[in-house]
């Protein structure tokens, strides 16, 4: 019996090396794109990175604790508007404005998380949907500050390269934090909440503090991404930055890659952005339909995501580092 088992482990270890290599190559390509790629390539990859940051951020709260947030776009939108307002009304330099964006989103995450995280299951999911909608309406009504539905016009600057690396930094940090969370006991505690919150609490896990912490960190990253987005695109309006489709994309990407894993959101966002862009260039007028079919197929046939699929096949080890 020992023979095949060792062979399996070897195969899995080899799979892990290939997996790691692929990710490293992708990271390398993404690093050097600004030096060689056209502005379109940069824009495309940057918007992919933005989705990746959102997916990673969603994964931190929903993938690990099972508190499925259907309102994650709220934090992205708050980040966008916090940065936009800081730049337009405060004349604050962009890096500081983006930091403010992250802080604002985290603060709102804490404020709403405190009551909202007491809701469980579908109640939380729907609650977050309501929170996102309420914030969107508030931003729309607060016209003197936010420009309301007319949107907010930031001073246009050509900052594509800087924004690109900033977005990359947010993604990298999100992955590093997720890696730390997944490999430290805190990750196990979060997963314990997902599996059985009452049992976790009975075992002495401080569930409220943990959930709130995960939620705030998650909101922070979404807010940073929103801030960078606003800075780069220089025009934001509530309909775009609070769009439900942002949340749906983040969820779809995370589910495709594998929720509650370290690299799941990364793998998912690379695949989904890549696929939708490829479909889009080949089939310009039916790509949305094709993407829809594809998403349905993925959730039907790969419900545990790619990570779990590879693990079930024994192609990569069942390690929390992945």
């Amino acid at each position, binding site marked *: 019996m020992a023979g095949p088992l060792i062979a399996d482990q070897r195969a899995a270890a080899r799979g892990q090396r290939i997996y790691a290599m692929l990710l490293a190559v992708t990271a390398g390509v993404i690093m050097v794109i600004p030096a060689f790629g*056209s*502005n*379109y*390539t940069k*824009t*495309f990859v940057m*918007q992919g990175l933005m989705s990746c940051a959102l997916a990673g951020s969603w994964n931190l709260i929903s993938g690990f604790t*099972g508190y*499925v947030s259907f309102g994650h776009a709220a934090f992205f939108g708050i980040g966008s508007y916090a940065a936009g307002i800081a730049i337009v009304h405060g004349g604050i330099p962009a890096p500081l404005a983006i930091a403010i964006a992250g802080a604002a989103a985290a603060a709102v995450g804490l404020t709403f998380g405190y009551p909202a995280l007491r809701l*469980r*299951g*579908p109640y939380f*999911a729907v609650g977050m949907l309501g929170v996102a909608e309420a914030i*969107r*309406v508030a931003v*729309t009504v607060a016209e003197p500050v936010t420009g*309301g*539905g*007319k*949107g907010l*016009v930031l001073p*246009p600057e*050509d900052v594509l390269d800087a924004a690109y690396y900033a977005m990359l930094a947010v993604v990298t940090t999100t992955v590093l934090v997720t890696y730390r969370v997944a490999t430290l006991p805190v990750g196990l505690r979060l997963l314990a909440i*997902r*599996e*059985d*919150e*009452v049992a976790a609490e009975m075992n002495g896990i401080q569930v409220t503090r943990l959930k709130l912490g995960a939620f705030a960190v998650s909101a922070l990253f979404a807010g940073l991404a929103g801030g960078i*987005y606003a800075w780069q*695109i*220089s*025009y934001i*309006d*509530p*309909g*775009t930055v609070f*769009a*439900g*489709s942002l949340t*749906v994309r983040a*969820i*779809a990407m995370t*589910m495709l890659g594998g929720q509650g894993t370290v690299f799941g959101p990364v793998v998912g966002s690379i695949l989904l952005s890549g696929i939708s862009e490829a479909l889009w260039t080949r089939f*310009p*007028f*039916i790509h*949305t*339909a*094709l*993407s*829809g*079919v*594809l*998403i*349905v197929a993925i*959730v*039907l046939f790969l*419900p545990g995501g790619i990570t779990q699929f590879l693990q079930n096949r024994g192609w990569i080890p069942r390690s929390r580092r992945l």
Partner: protein
Amino acid sequence: MNTRSRRSILAGLPASIGLAGLALSACGGSEGSSAAPAAGGAPAAGAAPKGAPVKIGASVSTTGSNGKTGQYQVEAYQLWAEQINTRGGLLGRPVEMVILDDQSDPTVGTKLYEKLINEDKVDLVLGPYSSGVTQAVSTVTEKYKYPLLSAGASASDIWKRNYKYVFGVYSVAESYFYGVIDLAKKSGYQTIAIVNEDTVFPKATAAGTAEYARKQGMRIVFQEQYPTKVTDLSSLITKVKAAKPEVLVGGSYQPDSVLLTRQAKELDLNVKMLGFSVGAAMPEFGEGLGKDADFVFGPSMWEPSLKTKGNTEFFDTYKKKWNREPDYHSATGFAGGQILEAAVGKAKSLDREKIREALATLEIETVLPGKYKVDDTGTQTAHIPVVIQWQGKDKPVIGPDSMANGKPKLPMPEWKARA
């Protein structure tokens, strides 16, 4: 209990995502991506175009919330390209359109103009549809110094940023309802209610209408906004009803103008004059509402019945090519092409700086009423919007007087009194 509920939602998640994916994709599509140079069918007025094609790029919403309206603009761009090729092309070279779909999303729009300029290496661009997308996209075209004719957007904010490369094709949103207000005033109505969707263009329309109505001495008895993609406006209509206005005006797009009319009937909201932007001027409004469309007023940037330069030919060729009548969004798109053509002709080259110069100083007639002429900011100043009213299957132009070919029917009868 709790565990089970958590698990069940996790289990249900894939299905809901799938549904959301389907919903996102269910927004329709269309045929044909780019108009190839016309295969010399009609006898050419000029010599057949020769040489490398002039690539003209545009991204227009043909899916998403503004897909229906955007489609008209795409068809007009393609028709214009086809016609210019039978006329001898642009500077003697054939025109090749590269048309993409931004899904009614400004983020996608900016990405696509980056693509058009950097990857497809288009020589010139034409504008997208909707003010929101144009706001975002004009930042990109400004960066690359590509002149942008805003053939599908008119919120005046676009021209308040000191941009040098964006030019208006038709009147700013603020002035849309001037004609309707004038008529209301003339008919002796004193009170008005204004509702609008809370996005760039409808807001601008509502703000301009409110200001003008006040200036004309009318009293605004109710003013409120509603969110985009709204599916129920009954509470809003109930509030309008309580305010008892004589005139109700909606700063709207196509779907919400239909919804407002339908629910006004359901809730028996009776006003003497009812008007909507965008939607009311579209053929779909009459098709979708039938007799309920009757008596509704709307500002139109163009009408088939107008005697503008080349209008009959435009209408006929459009109908022949696309098997449906153009609406004003087709005409503004077509005018965008005509203006670009004239500017290139004046500049005598594809030099975008020279074309920008030409666009800033040009004064020409297009299929649109009035003229093309912009001020220092690029804002359109010489186009004249008209007012239409649905009367049976027709929507005659009832103002301004110089262009009218019908008489307004007032007041709108009560819903209950209508068959």
